[in-house]
């Protein structure tokens, strides 16, 4: 999938330090470089706390790196004027790791999902907005009338789907999905993965897909990057990395995956 077209996103030598209490620094990202081609789905797996969400936030211009750069369609993301950045936001959206935290508790679900629609160049009528929200709700397996309810009235997995619906409603070119299916049962998860693959086939959706679930990564990612302690250990075609991991940490990761094969056949 990663042909020789110009990359949609290019991450160059990205580092991010945080100050810890007690005066020491924490290197959350350490010189990470990678690129994602248009229409590609790049999976990211790695240790909890290794900097995946930090990477996601920086690629979405929600945080600034200590050093390094992000190029979006060839342009330096952090050199864009605020207005230009806002104009481009409709092309890139994010699904946050903590769905409940990313939904404003005072807003109805329909309003939450419709929020990014203000990024579109054309002004949509109220009816048109409602129609798109309803369609999006059904795409993620919720009912159109759920739009009138508030986030606290939903289950964990339903809230995650609300966050997915919000990220997809502007038909962005790039979506960064931070553990986007972690709260979904297998049937709904399969439905969401189908939806994402479908969007890629029809609109060339590009994704940075962060997940701890190796099975999901294998299903959806063309390439996968493995991270540990802020560094990108290895990156390559998914099958290659999973079949022949080069790094010790990747091997440990693959070995720790809970499997079903020790379930004996019942007598």
């Amino acid at each position, binding site marked *: 999938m990663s042909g020789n077209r110009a990359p949609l996103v290019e991450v160059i030598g990205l580092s991010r330090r*945080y100050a*810890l*209490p*007690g005066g*020491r620094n924490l290197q959350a990202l350490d010189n990470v470089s990678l690129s994602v081609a248009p229409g590609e789905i790049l999976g990211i*797996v*790695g*240790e*909890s*706390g290794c900097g*995946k*969400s930090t990477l996601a936030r920086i690629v979405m211009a929600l945080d600034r790196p200590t050093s390094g750069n992000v190029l979006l369609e060839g342009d330096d993301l952090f050199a864009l004027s605020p207005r230009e950045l806002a104009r481009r936001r409709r092309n890139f959206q994010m699904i946050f*790791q*903590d*769905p*409940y*935290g990313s939904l404003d508790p005072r807003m109805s679900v329909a309003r939450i999902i419709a929020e990014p629609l203000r990024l579109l160049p054309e002004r949509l009528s109220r009816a048109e907005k409602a129609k798109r929200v309803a369609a999006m709700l059904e795409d993620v397996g919720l009912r159109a009338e759920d739009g*009138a309810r508030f986030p*606290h*009235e*939903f*289950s*964990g*997995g*339903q809230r*995650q*789907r609300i966050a997915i619906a919000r990220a997809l409603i502007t038909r962005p070119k790039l979506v960064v999905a*931070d*553990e986007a299916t*972690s*709260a*979904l*049962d*297998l*049937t*709904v*998860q*399969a439905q969401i993965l189908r939806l994402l693959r479908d969007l890629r086939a029809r609109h060339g959706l590009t994704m940075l897909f962060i997940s*701890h*679930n*190796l*099975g*999901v990564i*294998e*299903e959806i990612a063309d390439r996968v990057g493995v991270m540990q302690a802020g560094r990108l250990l290895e990156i390559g075609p998914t099958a290659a990395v999973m079949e022949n991991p080069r790094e010790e940490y990747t091997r*440990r*990761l693959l070995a*720790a*995956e*809970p*499997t*079903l*094969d*020790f*379930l*004996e*056949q*019942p007598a």
Partner: protein
Amino acid sequence: MSLLAVNNLTITFRNRRSTAETAVVKAVSFSLEAGETLGIVGESGSGKSMLSLAIMGLLPGDARLSGSIRLGGQEVVGASDRALDALRGREAGMIFQEPMTALNPAMTVGAQIAEGLCLRGGLSRADANAEALALMEQVRLPEARRRFASYPHEMSGGQRQRVGIAIALALKPRLLIADEPTTALDVTVQKDILDILDELVRERAMALILISHDLGVIARSAARTLVMYRGDMMEDGPTVQVLRQPQSDYTRQLIAALPRRSRRSLEGAAP
């Protein structure tokens, strides 16, 4: 007598717009012994979290419940706030599905773990802090000593989840409900956490309810599994049987939806 006996439990919410009521848990009955692990899998929105909250006496104010929940011989349904308070912590603890909702954003994580030990465990401040630090190390929070004074928003998703686990483990409850406890953890840390839980079940005869969408997690830790679908209990039986010879359509769909990788491992063992 079982440690936990749930009988004919129904949870309903009244619709805001009409007078109709929607049942999110419908006439569910099951029981659990000390030292047993019960896995719960089910559709998203099938009532797993509501069932857990009901057992803890933590349902939101607009929920109505009927039926009976007996925990350690005591009735939870209709119990007074004070009686419920006494049950929580020592008798029953819970790891919440969304760690951030259960954490206080304005309090350091160390203080939050120590708080329960002080209030309910009767430890002195210093002892509670030492114990909290030990717990943080146990759940594999890196640099625990330095992380003690961090606020929840300064931590990664998986680190917050581990703080939630430490809080629940602090009081060594006799029944632990773990609602999707490892969704934000990589598989190596997940393995360590599940090992800790398994050990508590084995050595301290803790009863564990393990809710997960990951059949691999269920298969490794729970000998018995309950399947929920739209508020109904579809199956309750030995995990091997539920996964190998599913009785309900939903369970079959679930297995059909397994990622290729996991299905290979399920079929791989079949002769």
